[in-house]
């Protein structure tokens, strides 16, 4: 019997190591990830008249609202950049992070139905959310680029620069941050629903504590430190700087954001991994 014991292909145990992510399993299920992304993309706007145009309308209207409220009525500075461009750069970036966080944070509760019946690596779910949001982000980025092109032709004072090479890295940071926070919260909400309430307005409030609607440079020194503590601040600033050439690119902020993202991401993965095995009992 002894020699037989070695060729079990699967062993189900009470719990596994903290970092036992079963990435091999995740890779085996990559087609499922693709299906989920497709589902998210196709299903959302079925039976709507405008369909995928909603992807454009949402950031467009937010930008216009911000331009009117913060730019025109409140008269806040945009560092000389056309307000439409200024706000949209912030919104597109922030939206990606916020959507990733919001959707991932409900992974377990939203999918309890599926998770309760079949096994697949649970990590697939948040990963698919990140990817489908990335597509959405891509679409919105195109809208932004069109707007940018229009302003450049009109001769506005914007200089897209070499730091555009940094953008993929910035997107990675936003994804990592949203995923990390999201997984952490989703794992904890299976037991303590209180967090669910916090996330909704927490993300909303965090936006005001980031340079989405104002440039970091216009802040008084004593507030700057608090805003810079928001890990998204450095990312949004760098993102805007790359496309518009306005504001500052502060490497310290960026390094801080990177470290913060790493810590949150690892923490998120660990908790998620720990909870996924038995969350069905508490959800």
């Amino acid at each position: 019997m002894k020699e037989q014991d070695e060729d079990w292909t699967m062993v189900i145990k009470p719990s596994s190591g903290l970092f036992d992510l079963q990435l091999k399993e995740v890779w085996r299920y990559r087609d499922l990830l693709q299906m989920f992304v497709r589902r998210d993309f196709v299903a959302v706007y079925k039976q709507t008249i405008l369909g995928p145009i909603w992807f454009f309308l949402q950031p467009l209207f937010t930008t216009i609202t911000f331009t009117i409220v913060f730019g025109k009525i409140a008269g806040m500075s945009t560092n000389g950049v056309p307000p439409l461009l200024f706000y949209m750069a912030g919104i597109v970036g922030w939206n990606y992070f916020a959507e990733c966080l919001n959707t991932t944070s409900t992974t377990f509760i939203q999918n309890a139905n599926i998770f309760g019946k079949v096994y697949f690596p649970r990590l697939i779910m948040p990963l698919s959310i990140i990817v489908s949001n990335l597509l959405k982000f891509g679409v919105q980025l195109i809208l932004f680029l069109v707007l940018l092109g229009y302003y450049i032709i009109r001769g506005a004072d914007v200089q897209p620069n070499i730091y555009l090479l940094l953008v993929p890295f910035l997107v990675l940071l936003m994804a990592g941050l949203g995923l990390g926070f999201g997984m952490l919260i989703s794992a904890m909400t299976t037991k303590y629903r209180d967090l669910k309430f916090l996330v909704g307005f927490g993300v909303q409030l965090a936006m005001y504590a980031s340079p989405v609607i104002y440039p970091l440079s216009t802040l008084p020194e004593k507030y700057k430190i608090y805003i810079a503590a928001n890990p998204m601040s450095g990312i949004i600033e760098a993102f805007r700087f790359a496309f518009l050439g306005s504001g500052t690119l502060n490497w310290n902020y960026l390094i801080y954001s990177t470290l913060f993202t790493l810590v949150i991401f690892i923490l998120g993965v660990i908790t998620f991994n720990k909870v996924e095995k038995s969350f069905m009992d508490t959800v």
Partner: protein
Amino acid sequence: MSNTVIRVENLSKQYRLGELGTGTISHDLNRWWNKVRGKEDPYLKIGEVNDRTTKATSEYAWALQDINFEVKQGEVLGIIGKNGAGKSTLLKLLSRVTAPTTGTIKAKGRIASLLEVGTGFHEELTGRENVFLNGAIMGMSKAEIRSKFDEIVAFSGTERYIDTPVKRYSSGMRVRLAFAVAAHLEPEILIVDEVLAVGDAEFQKKAIGKMQDVSRGDGRTVLFVSHNMAAVQALCTNGLILKNGTVDNFGEINKMINHYIDDNGNVDKTFKEWQQGSGPGNSQIELTSVSIVDENFQRKEQFYLDEKIFISIKFRINEPGLKINFSLSLYGKGEEYILSSPSINDPLYRVPLDRGIYEAICIIPSSLFNEGTFYLSILLVNNQNRIITQLDKILSITYIDDGKNRGNYFGHWSGLIRPNLCWNTKKINF
């Protein structure tokens, strides 16, 4: 071939009873504190045999406790047990939906479950899109699904609607499509839970046939959970009986089914006895006991369809010369009034009786009723047609289908009664 493909060792699963919320944090902290100090989890110790009928004394319950068994390749294992015995928990652990509290499951090959088919079907997507999505959820690759797509659609019989959103499907169509995907999974180990309850007869036949192909033809292993003893007996080679979260018995399927049926856990409904002076009746006559027994005068809770049932009514006559008779009424589970049978053909029907103890026996012929539970009322009447006593639904009889006289049909058999009518086909013309 005696290759073990599943080995379950000391498997247990604990659940917390009651509401989660207050106290959860303190328990978690306590647990963590004990862990830090290298001590055992304090909440794992409390716990008792999981009997749903009694109120628990602790907040934690063992849904499964110390389960051990092995399944060999090509075997079809029937998992039998009453509601709450732990069948679903066992399947959930096997399909990795939730993790065990202690113990291990070792398996060779892919395990796929049909725990309620159609998981992950998205209302807005078309049948075609859902086949791909559902297949991927079940662990198939895109290429695999594509190669079997035509087969899946043909099996489900939904060709015409394949490009219609699933939300427009009837529930039967949905189940058929979902089952078709699952049936083409080709895992080494397949878990099937009560799927037979849905779909029409034709589809059930297909589904059963597919399950048989899977085990017999391809040497794959099937774990089958059902309350339908006929299907279990016809399909399974071995049986595992669960009772209150523990393994009650494990072995050859016919033995297991007999064991399960003979296991009379609840005697109350097949037997009732009264102390002298407290029985129903009057000063002249008093009932002492009523019971349901088989041919060997053994009390049983469940009977096969082709068994005769004896209803015994014992009574004491205190005043000589009394003339009485009984009448029996039977009701179905849904309160349907099925029949009443007075004891007119009894030799002692309204004949003056001496003082003493008597036993009246009524025989319910074999192969009369369909499977299910029937309730029995007894009426005691004197010769002026006055009711002396009336015992409403005092006994119950449960019939179980052992799979005989079914032919190749394993689905639900409708109707309250199920006598074997006479059939005869002859050629009458050339």
